[in-house]
């Protein structure tokens, strides 16, 4: 289902469609993504590369096209992810806040219903997420983690593929309005 007739860029914000979700969807989907991120890799290690909370934040940001709601969802998901991990509180929160904000900002200019665009956006924000996390580790925590851009790109492609499929599934849950 495409609202833009096959174009990837919108001529104006009015062409974009603001997707609305039920409240339970906005709460349940990120929660399920967090559960998946926590428990699934315990049983299926090869799924450890997936960053489900990030994909959900990207999707909500793109669909809501509201930077404030996007950054709030990103902050909430990120802080929850920090709380369930050994990371200091705020590392994933800050990163996903920026991702949600920029995703909502980009969603106003892009045809977020285009599959290729979704793939590229998911790829871009995955790399941005990893890069920003690495920068924060170095700048704020003074931790020396490796800078592995090829791995980030490879994992980004995989996450983008999963994200494109996930976004298609999540489209079923939105309430569209123009």
């Amino acid at each position, binding site marked *: 289902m495409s609202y833009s007739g096959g174009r990837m860029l919108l001529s104006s914000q009015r062409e974009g469609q603001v997707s609305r979700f039920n409240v339970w969807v906005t709460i349940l989907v990120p929660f399920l993504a967090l559960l998946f991120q926590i428990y699934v890799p315990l049983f299926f290690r090869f799924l450890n590369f997936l960053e489900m909370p990030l994909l959900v934040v990207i999707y909500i940001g793109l669909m809501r096209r509201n*930077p*404030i709601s996007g*950054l*709030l969802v990103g*902050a909430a998901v*990120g*802080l929850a992810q920090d709380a369930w991990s050994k990371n*200091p*509180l*705020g*590392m994933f*929160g*800050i990163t996903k*806040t*920026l991702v949600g*904000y920029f995703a909502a*900002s980009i969603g106003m200019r892009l045809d977020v219903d285009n599959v290729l665009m979704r793939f590229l956006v998911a790829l871009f924000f995955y790399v941005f997420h990893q890069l920003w996390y690495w920068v924060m580790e170095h700048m*704020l*925590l*003074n931790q020396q983690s490796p800078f592995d851009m090829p791995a980030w790109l490879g994992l980004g492609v995989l996450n983008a593929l999963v994200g494109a499929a996930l976004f298609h599934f999540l489209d079923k849950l939105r309430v569209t309005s123009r």
Partner: protein
Amino acid sequence: MESFLNRYRNMTVLLLVIFAQLVLLAVDAKNDQHVRFIRVWTVTVVSPLARVMEGMRTSSISFVHNYITLHDADAQNRRLQAEVDRLKLENVFLTNQLNRADNAKALAIFQQSTPSKTLAASVFSMGIGSSRKVVYVDRGSTSGVMREMAVVTPDGIIGKVTAVYPTASEVLLITDPMFAAGVISGKTHARGTLKGTGTSECKVDFVAFEDKVDPGDWFFTSGDDRIFPRGMPVGVVKSVKPGQPYREIMLDPSAMTAGSPDDLLIVLEGVHQDIPDTPPATQQVYLAPPPPPLAEPLAQTAAAPTDGSASAPAAAPRTGSGTEADKMRTVYQKAADSEDIVLGGGPTGQNIKRPPDFTKIPVDPRTVPQGRGAVPPSAPAAPVPKKGTESPIPTKTTAPANPDAVRRANQAGGGPGGIPQL
């Protein structure tokens, strides 16, 4: 402000959320030293600002403090300068006091050693006017001072009393043109008259051109003026010019080398003494320690000249002139020469076949010393030898019969370390 927030609402919310999470991160995370990052970041951010503020505060305080300090330093500098000036004056005063104490001590020693009766006095005023060289001393007629009394110091004569008041006296210095005194050369016994010139030098008039006087010779008072006792040092000849019929002799007064002294002696009763043929060894009075109990062979010491101008007694024995010890030595030398015995020729008992027979010395009242340290005429057969003339053979007969007389005779002889007898 409200419109600004509305316009940049998204960005503002983003920054607020990120800031809040940064605070959360800083509170939650710790570094390697287990210090929370909020503390690390706070210190990192605040430290430069605190350092700048501390620097400004320190600079301000330092500026104010330095200003106040400099202000105090100026006052302190003036106070210290005044104190330095006061201490300089005090130092000069104390130095003068010390010098006066030294002079007074020397004066007291001289007063005890000289046979003349003297009275110590201090100069309290200089004469008014540059033409006359007079000073006023704090002794007058109530102390027994009379006009025409001699005024001396251990270094030599100073002047004479020209006016006497009940508690003060006027002393005419020897540099005054009106001053005159009879003097005699210590080396050639050339007589003359000392006169002041108004300067720091004096001249000796009426010295015949045939009398030999050289620069460096000493002049002493002759006693002819009935003011100054004979034998007091006057000064040393500075220059001699030939003249007809008298020489022109300029003389440096020995007592005025450092200017007019502050303390001096007024000779109340003068005692004439012999004219020493050697200049005073030093201008300071020195009392030699008492001689050792055993006589030493001092003949060699006595034979040694005291300076280049003085002749050795052994080489040029004097006849009748000189001190009492010299006269006694001459008697013994003649006795030894008549028996071909060399006195003082070596250690005791060497190069002497037999002791000299001093019993054959003729008793001549003129050669027997009289006065201080004299040997009684009743004992000519066993004369008391003096240190410089004792027999090289120590016998009981040559032992000092009167050690005090020997010591005084030695002192009278002006030997090394002795007191120049005035």
